[in-house]
């Protein structure tokens, strides 16, 4: 057993992935949260989701390539992740969670690592596999997803010092909170758009009025 935890910051995500149960405890103990590493992971998440759409082999690729819009990929990776962090923080601060925003951001990003690695494997494999061999790919895909979910539960449990049932409940309500945040964001955007249109129409009216 190697108990030497004085490793560089970039090694920590792999360490917690290999030690799903005590990894986050060690991370918490060593206070080895690194925002820089976390941001790299989040950006990798975004890049991989784009790569999945663009580089997956033709046999497994359902992306509509005639129009490529990067905004949906950005919002379904980076914005979704930030919403998760914000939602989780706002919920858990009210319910005795110990994690700060920075902690939550870091551990959530670290928990994504197995999912991202298996996604890369799938993207590469999809260019070499036949349709009948898709089982291998999907096995890896689900394995990575399941691993990341386990890591996320472990991360949330450790960072807030919750019991398992409380962690699961917190995660469920985080999803609800995310839905509310996104709803409010869309509402705000629409209202601002209306305000803008209102202002703009007054501007044009005035323009007509004084142009003579």
């Amino acid at each position: 057993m190697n108990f030497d935890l004085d490793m560089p910051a970039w090694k920590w995500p792999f360490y917690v992935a290999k030690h799903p149960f005590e990894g986050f405890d060690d991370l918490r103990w060593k206070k080895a949260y690194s925002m820089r590493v976390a941001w790299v992971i989040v950006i990798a998440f975004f890049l991989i989701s784009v790569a999945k759409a663009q580089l997956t082999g033709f046999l497994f690729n359902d992306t509509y390539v005639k129009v490529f819009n990067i905004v949906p990929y950005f919002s379904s990776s980076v914005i979704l992740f930030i919403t998760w962090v914000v939602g989780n923080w706002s919920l858990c601060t009210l319910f005795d969670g110990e994690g700060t925003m920075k902690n939550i951001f870091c551990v959530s990003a670290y928990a994504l690592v197995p999912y991202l690695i298996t996604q890369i494997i799938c993207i590469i494999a999809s260019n070499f596999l036949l349709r009948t061999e898709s089982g291998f790919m999907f096995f890896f895909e689900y394995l990575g997803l399941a691993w990341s979910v386990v890591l996320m539960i472990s991360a949330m449990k450790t960072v807030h010092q919750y019991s398992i049932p409380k962690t699961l409940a917190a995660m469920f309500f985080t999803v609800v909170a995310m839905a509310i945040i996104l709803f409010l964001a869309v509402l705000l955007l629409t209202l601002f758009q209306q305000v803008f249109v209102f202002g703009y129409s007054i501007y044009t009216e005035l323009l007509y009025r004084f142009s003579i």
Partner: protein
Amino acid sequence: MRFIKKLTAFICVAAVAASSLVVNASADEPYIGYNYDWWGDPIPSQNGFVVEDVISGAEMGAVTLAEPNDLFVHNETGKFYIVDTKNNRLVITDESFNPDNIKIIDTLTYSDIFTEADSKIKKTTFNVPMGVYVRTDKDGHTLIYVADSANERVVAFNEDLEIEMEYVRPSSDVYDAQVTYNPNKVIVDSAFNVYVVVPSITQGTVQFSADGTFNGYYGANRVNATAEVIAQQFWKLIYTREQIIAMRRNVSIEISNVDIDEEGFIYTVTETRTSDTDILKKLNPAGTNIFTNLGYDQYTYGDYATRYYKGKNYANAICDVDIDEEGNIYLLDFATGRVFQYTNECDLLFIFGGKGTQKGTFTSVSAVESYKGKVYVLDSRKNSITIFGQTEFGGIVQNAIYLFNEGLYDEAKGPWEEVLRRDANYWLAYIGLGNAYLNQGDYATALDYFYRNSRAGYNRAFKSYRIEVIRANFTWVMTVVLVLVLALIIISYVRKSMAKKKGKKTGGTN
């Protein structure tokens, strides 16, 4: 200068003259030729069929047709049978639609077998006839079957207009007494089994054997698995018997039309508009659908886009199907008045027709038939037959498909390339060329043609391509891998032994 002016003037005139010489065939049609690409997007295409003529009842010598509901072309004799529903008659003519060749049938006589039993009735007439089918046996004896809707019978008579058999409502112990029996369409297989489409029957077509005995139902549709149906399945687990009986019953949608091909496969279509289950079925003798979307097959029929109105999706209303001698499938869409031509594998070839009042468009289509490369569409409100002829482009496509089906893949390459020269968006040409290269063993080129055109083809080509690449590179790749593995083992061994030596030197601290 003057010379240059003259020259430019001459060139301009020549250019104008030349441009007026270019005939744009598709511009004459009242519909725009289009096709679908791999993404399911409609893209403009050249017309495969153009209007040749429109024949009204008067032109063929039958005064006026009134709501004609079915058209049948007998391939062996070349006779056209038109069911003139409102006039309660059957009009027989031929390809030329010459008034001299017309024969109108409105009265039939019972042959001797019937008159003995019921001597009072010697003659009979049609009452709202809806469908017709004709079959000649190997002795050359022709029987005409008419679905005589309001008379609740399918009547089979010979060319002397003598009734030989009546297929009437089956006895009530096998056929629900509360369900009406108004035959709408009829087909007959080579063993002279009769399949009757009855609009009130949802269990399939009503099948009779040649002697008139009821054999049961054939080719039922499945129930479309909507959310409501799934919810009902759940409630059925909980409800009592009485509650289940009181529930709304889910039945499949009735078949609207049938046809039979030369090999004896029966095709059914369902005019549903609100569901996409079993729009077209190709049934084998066991009654199993061959065109299922199980596995990797993706059969689509009619237009892809659906319209949404008041909580329901409205799609095509495929009201007739026809199979020509080459096995091409024609579907007629009542909603848009379009004819969709497919290959025998159900790949879309051409779309033509439409709604409107011009030549080549329709108000209320009722039947489609094909004969000798031409397509005949019957309109029950315009009371006319529209004849579509194949264009040069359509002919090239047809030829390429014919060659491919015959297994002449290399020969099919030329026509397919010609198709692409004329219409680079023609999806099927890429698949055809891909198949040609695949059969030649040129897998890399086949992959290029199949890419974003056909997953099934790509999969097949890729399988062979992968084996080829592995075979070509196996030796050196494996050599490199083995050398690397060996190197790694040696390095780790050396490292370990060095670490041991180090440990011995510094040992004794633990």
